């Protein structure tokens, strides 16, 4: 039996299955990828594939994308363009798809693809592309179209706001540089002590001491200021955080060293001081560095279309949604969003509300019926008379509702801060005890011992272990398609013991359908008839059939579609009907909930029916079963029923159907009140409230241009099947942090042994501090990488 190995697409790396096409000896998974390759090859841009392997992404046609013509309208263009002068226009676009060197290279070489581009520049950390182009030769719409064609369509929101994400604070770099500078030079000046030699030249000694003090000042008062600010903030809000013992340690080091050198009783600990601040700042930098450049927050404006087409007498004009008046007639075309509550005046409404309610199939609306804002028209264009202004629309109410749902969840205290609490208590106890001991035995040593305890108890390694452990975890998860808002999310993820799934759009893909034929199998000829007729129908189910049946097309004559019933035509002499049971003369048959049926009749005789349902994503069943080993799994859906395949993934009592958005949110907070740590996985506006209530809210994103509600994490649709592995990685990271805490504490204990016995010389401190930091960071990094390999997430 020949085994088939899957070839990977040369462009995007996805496996080539159905639409496999080969060109120039290279394999591509679809026409889209092949088209991009051809475009780049013909423009002399093959270097794109040289810099990184398989750098592209499979472009999925996204219904949420605004048409490119819209960007040529002055109202829209003016919002996006930065300035225009001497024929050169500059525009800044968000392109979240860029993820590698090839992306940067291609985006900065756009002028080779399109000569009207004068210059294009990328800011990778913000995923921002700035293009200078000659607008006379290339309109903004065509530029955006070009970017979409090569797989880098910009992300644009309804308000066309440019979002700038947080980036590593520049001052942090400055502080790091200053701390490093002082660290190196102070160590250099401490060489005599390291080698045990004592300087006998008094002026030289004074000179060195002066220099060391001068170097220590910027360390304490500039570079180290962040710790004091944070510690003080904790004191004012009466909470304990890890920066408080750090601040105490810094001050102990500084003042003890000052005292020692001025009283000439020792060389001081300036080198340890500078080293401490330097290493801790590295930890902070790493934490910020692993931040993702995605935007996790959402505005209501994000869900609105840029402009709406309004009928004005005989003409049509584009206006902003906020400018619509009651009584206006707007035109909503295929795949477009209905932005306001209105009455259908013309056309057949087939409104897809899956984003708002979770019902997967479009709802039919007839002339005179109301249509609520937020649904999407799937079918020919309709005309809607505006009933309520946007501010009073259903969509806005829904948004406000989920914004007010419950209180903001109380922040789980970070493990580090919990540890800090115990740590501080322990340190002060030990300091007090040793002070008492020495006061009784040798009073002169009491104070030096206390300061030594405070010095060595400074939790340098402790404070480094978490940023590095969680930083690595965030980076690894990002490479696997799960993007977290910040390090605290990893911690909450590790404690998750209940996972709630939404159905439509989360477990099932937006556009993936499973088609089954009931009846005697169709011949190739019959399939051809059905497919050719389906092509003429605007019904969404016909589109599904058209895509699913693989058969050559034939011409159809006398095609007539009866809305609500079916479509009939004559193809190759055979009268073919597609429609509901009555239309195709079908007997009454059992229906399974969750399925839609298209009945076929040939020459007036019932032939069979297609059962169409939303297909669950590949690997979801296994993924949910796997997840249920570590956490209770639940299914909440706005749909009225759950099909058998999906139902099998969950325990019967854990599924709720017909859930409205507030009910979803209440379910999640109910679980939390019962003590669970809840992760919610959803994708639509109907999940927004529940996502906010959960401890970890994860939205499923099909493409970077698609809109998702606000959340703590975003997971790529293709990565959902890895969810159980990712949860396990989070738990392992948590355990690694615990192990590194133990390791750090071991160092502290050793140091304390020296301190309490009065033997903490500057040399020992100088060795202990960097040694503990480096070993803990190395241990944590290797351990996280090892855990990732175990979970098959290492890349």
């Amino acid at each position, binding site marked *: 039996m020949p085994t088939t190995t899957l070839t990977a697409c040369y462009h995007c790396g996805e496996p080539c299955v159905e639409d496999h096409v080969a060109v120039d000896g290279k394999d591509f998974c679809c026409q889209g990828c092949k088209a991009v390759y051809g475009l780049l090859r013909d423009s002399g841009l093959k270097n794109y594939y040289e810099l990184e392997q398989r750098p592209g992404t499979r472009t999925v046609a996204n219904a949420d994308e605004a048409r490119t013509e819209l960007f040529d309208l002055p109202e829209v263009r003016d919002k996006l363009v930065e300035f225009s002068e001497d024929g050169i226009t500059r525009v800044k676009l968000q392109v979240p798809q860029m993820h590698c060197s090839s992306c940067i290279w291609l985006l900065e070489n756009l002028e080779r693809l399109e000569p009207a581009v004068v210059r294009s520049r990328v*800011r990778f950390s913000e995923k921002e592309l700035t293009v200078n182009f000659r607008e006379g030769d290339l309109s903004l719409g065509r530029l955006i179209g070009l970017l979409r064609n090569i797989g880098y369509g910009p992300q644009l929101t309804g308000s066309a706001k440019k979002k700038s994400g947080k980036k590593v604070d520049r001052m942090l770099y400055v502080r790091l540089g200053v701390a490093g500078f002082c660290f190196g030079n102070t160590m250099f000046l401490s060489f005599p002590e390291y080698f045990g030699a004592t300087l006998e*030249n008094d002026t030289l000694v004074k000179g060195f001491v002066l220099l060391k003090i001068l170097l220590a000042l910027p360390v304490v008062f500039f570079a180290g200021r962040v710790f004091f600010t944070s510690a003080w903030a904790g004191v004012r809000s009466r909470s304990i955080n890890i920066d408080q013992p750090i601040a105490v340690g810094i001050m102990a080091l500084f003042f003890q060293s000052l005292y020692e050198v001025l009283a000439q009783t020792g060389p001081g600990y300036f080198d340890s001081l500078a080293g401490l601040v330097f290493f801790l700042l590295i930890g902070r930098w790493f934490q910020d560095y692993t931040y993702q450049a995605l935007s996790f927050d959402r505005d209501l404006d994000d869900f609105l279309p840029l402009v709406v087409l309004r009928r004005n007498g005989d003409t049509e004009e584009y206006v902003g949604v906020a400018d619509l008046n009651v009584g206006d007639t707007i035109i909503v075309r295929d795949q477009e969003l209905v932005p306001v509550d209105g009455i259908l005046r013309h056309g057949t409404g087939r409104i897809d509300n899956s984003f708002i309610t979770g019902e997967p199939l479009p709802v039919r609306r007839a002339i005179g019926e109301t249509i609520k804002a937020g649904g999407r028209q799937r079918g020919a264009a309709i005309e809607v008379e505006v009933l309520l202004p946007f501010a009073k629309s259903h969509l806005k109410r829904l948004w406000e509702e989920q914004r007010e749902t419950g209180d903001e969840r109380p922040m789980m205290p970070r493990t580090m801060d919990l540890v800090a609490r115990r740590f501080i208590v322990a340190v002060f106890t030990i300091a007090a005890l040793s002070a008492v001991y020495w006061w009784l035995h040798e009073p002169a040593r009491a104070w030096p011992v206390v300061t030594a305890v405070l010095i060595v108890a400074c939790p340098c390694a402790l404070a480094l272990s978490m940023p590095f452990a969680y930083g690595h975890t965030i980076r690894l998860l990002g490479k696997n398609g799960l993007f977290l808002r910040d390090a605290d999310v990893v911690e909450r993820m590790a404690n998750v013991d209940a996972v709630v799934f939404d159905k439509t759009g989360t477990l099932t893909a937006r556009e993936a359908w499973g088609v089954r034929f009931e009846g005697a199998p169709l011949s190739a000829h019959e399939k051809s008839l059905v497919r050719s007729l389906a092509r003429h129908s605007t019904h969404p189910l016909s589109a599904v059939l058209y895509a699913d049946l693989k058969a050559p097309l034939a011409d159809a004559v006398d095609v007539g579609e009866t809305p609500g019933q079916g479509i009939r035509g004559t193809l190759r002499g055979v009268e073919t009907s597609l429609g509901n049971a009555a239309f195709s003369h079908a007997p009454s048959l059992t229906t399974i909930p969750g399925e839609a049926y298209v009945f076929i009749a040939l020459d007036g005789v019932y032939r069979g029916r297609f059962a169409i349902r939303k297909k669950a994503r590949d690997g979801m069943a296994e993924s949910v079963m796997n997840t249920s080993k570590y956490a209770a799994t639940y299914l909440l859906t706005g749909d009225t029923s759950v099909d058998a395949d999906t139902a099998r993934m969950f325990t019967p009592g854990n599924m709720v159907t017909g859930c409205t958005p507030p009910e979803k949110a209440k379910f999640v907070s109910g679980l939390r009140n019962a003590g669970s740590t809840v992760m919610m996985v959803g994708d639509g506006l109907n999940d927004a409230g529940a996502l906010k209530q959960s401890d970890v809210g994860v939205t499923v994103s099909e493409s970077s241009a698609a809109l998702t509600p606000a959340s703590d994490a975003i997971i790529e649709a293709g990565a959902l099947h890895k969810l159980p592995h990712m949860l396990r990685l989070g738990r392992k990271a948590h355990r690694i942090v615990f192990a590194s805490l133990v390791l750090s504490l071991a160092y502290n204990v050793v140091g304390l042994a020296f301190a309490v016995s009065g033997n903490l010389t500057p040399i020992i401190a100088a060795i202990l501090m960097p040694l503990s930091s480096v070993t803990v960071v190395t241990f944590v990094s290797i351990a996280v990488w090892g855990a990732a390999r175990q979970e098959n997430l290492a890349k």
Partner: protein
Amino acid sequence: MSYYGRCISGSFAPRKNMSVIILLISASTLVAGVFLFAFIWAARTGQFDDDRSPAVRILNDDSPATPSPSKKQ
């Protein structure tokens, strides 16, 4: 001659004039300080914000002023 003899005999007799070391250290600290300020200036003007693009940018071969070559048929 006596200068070398003193060194060879291995004694660590303190030398009276060590001021040259102070000069050396001051000079080197000054030079290092110049580099530190250069670093601070670079960080504050945002040169370290994007660490990925510059690495790739050097691979571009054409200067942007020249018109791009005609497309292949």
